[in-house]
């Protein structure tokens, strides 16, 4: 049995690795053509894949467990919605606004806790409070965020004669954005910076003695993560056309954490694939057992935490 496991593992890591990648990429390219009715679901899955990666930069590489990723996702979504609905500006202006606001907010929120090195447990609780504030804030500032009604409705513009408001073109737009930023993150993590981050997670004190400003390194990861979460939120709001408080809710934060753990913390491919897989699985399960799919998701998550804490990628990579 374990020989067979090892064989499959070896196969997936060695000979089959490149073909599997190519197959995956091809699949992402042709999904909306094979199943046009599923293109909006596929768009959502891709966006959540990027969101999962961006959070994993903080959770898996920097080792900071945050409970507020949905705040940045929501900030991105609300920035775009606000720019279009209230200021009647272009959809594209929403993206730089989202990124800049996310960077500013992330800097304000993250500066002191990272500088003072408040420790894992306190960081969890700190971001829990921040996430709760962000959610409450969206509800009460009705004049700014539309309260529980949200900000809507709008659709993305035409580009070069192609209406992005259509499901299919928007899928390819999303694919382009997600591919670009995922590749960017991949390059970042494979660079020296990725090694510095991993080393900092494993032994921060030693890295400081080696002369690294670990606060700065963690801050960079935190900012990059926040900005890319905001971009994911901005692309997402374009596909559904309304920004609502559910995009900031703790439920979304919980989902991201589930995707990351199931995929494997500290890997980029794992959370990405797990997010896409689970979004599709959720759709299938919802049609079978509407009330119970989140229960099954929870059970799956618990099994992973206790039995396979390294996630699917840990299963494939084995002990290293």
């Amino acid at each position, binding site marked *: 049995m374990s020989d067979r496991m090892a064989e499959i593992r070896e196969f997936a890591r060695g000979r089959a690795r490149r073909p599997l990648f190519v197959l995956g990429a091809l699949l992402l390219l042709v999904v909306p053509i094979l199943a046009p009715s599923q293109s909006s679901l596929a768009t959502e899955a891709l966006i959540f894949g990027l969101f999962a990666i961006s959070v994993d930069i903080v959770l898996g590489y920097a080792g900071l*467990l945050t409970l507020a990723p949905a705040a940045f996702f929501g900030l991105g979504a609300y920035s775009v919605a606000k720019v279009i609905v209230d200021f009647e500006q272009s959809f594209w202006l929403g993206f730089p606004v989202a990124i800049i606001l996310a960077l500013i907010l992330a800097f304000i929120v993250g500066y*002191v*806790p990272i500088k*003072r090195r*408040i420790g*894992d*447990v*306190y960081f*969890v*609780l*700190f971001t*829990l*409070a*921040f996430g*709760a*504030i962000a959610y*409450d*804030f969206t*509800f*009460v500032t009705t004049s700014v965020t539309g309260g529980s009604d949200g900000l809507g409705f709008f659709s993305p513009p035409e580009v070069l004669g192609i209406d992005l408001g259509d499901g299919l073109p928007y899928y390819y737009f999303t694919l382009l954005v997600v591919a670009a930023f995922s590749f960017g993150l991949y390059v970042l993590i494979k660079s020296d910076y990725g090694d510095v981050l991993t080393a900092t997670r494993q032994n921060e004190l030693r890295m400081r003695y080696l002369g690294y400003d670990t606060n700065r390194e963690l801050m960079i990861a935190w900012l990059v993560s926040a900005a890319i979460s905001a971009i994911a939120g901005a692309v997402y709001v374009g596909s559904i056309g309304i920004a609502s408080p559910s995009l900031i809710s*703790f439920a979304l934060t*919980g989902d991201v*954490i589930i995707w990351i*753990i199931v995929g494997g913390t500290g890997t980029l491919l794992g959370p990405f694939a797990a997010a896409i897989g689970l979004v599709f699985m959720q759709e299938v399960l919802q049609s079978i057992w509407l*009330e*119970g799919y*989140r*229960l099954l*998701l*929870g*059970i799956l*998550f*618990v099994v992973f*935490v*206790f039995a396979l*804490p390294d996630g699917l990628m840990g299963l494939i990579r084995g002990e290293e």
Partner: protein
Amino acid sequence: MYEIPLITADNFITYALNGLSRGMIIFLVASGLSLIFGLIGLINFAHGAMLALGGYGTYIVIQATGNFWLGLVISVVLVTVLGYVLERKVLYWLYDEPLLGFLGTFGLGLVIEEALAVYFGSRSYTIPSPLPESIELLGVTYPSYRLFVILVGAIVALGIGLLLTRTRLGLEIHATANRQPTAEILGVDTARIYTITFVLGTALAALAGALTAPITSMYPTIGLDYITMAFLVIIVGGMGSFKGSFVVSMIVGQVIAFGWLLTAPTYVRILIFAAAMVFILYKPRGFFGKPEVHE
């Protein structure tokens, strides 16, 4: 501009009592969390689900027998047993890894809450008050059930306070929290202390859930709102400080009760959370936390 409403003496007493009963519920949740967090260092995210189970358990027994008091006792006992099983069989493995402990309890809480949602649906339930009459108190008529909640909270606070400061078990809990290896060498069965503390904390959550059921409506994720507040209460009060969670719960209860006179209730919540964030950063041991507890 906000107009500050005029408060009569009667209103003042009513609000103060509302704040007291609300503060007591928060205290029951926070003290359980504080015991578990202060001693074990576990961010127990399943605590809110235990609270929800306490509430729904009471509801089931009421449906079957029509007796609230029976429901209160049965649901607290059952949830306590569940806490014991969970601690012995599952959570025990996660104590050395705080982040994994958070993820594990988060997952367990999710499973319990979703199971409740599947069984009861996500709509909210209300339980009729078991003590519907009101009493005259300090010149106001006040619902006697809320007075009962205040009384229970006060008794629990006193009881656990005495347990922690006046008994052998309390001494062993303090010793284990401060220096677990040393306590072990001196003959304290620390695994047993962990279990007792976790089970006690869970029982308090279930009690809070059962007591709050007739006051507020119940829904599967009711626990999340409570534990977010409770986590922040124990930080401001001081990690592992029982006195701290009591005092801060009372303050938070009063702030919520009177705060809405000045501004929207959500702003009051935001204010409390923001205060807790400042505390985490600049005074992580809170008002009453001792530096040696939970290192």
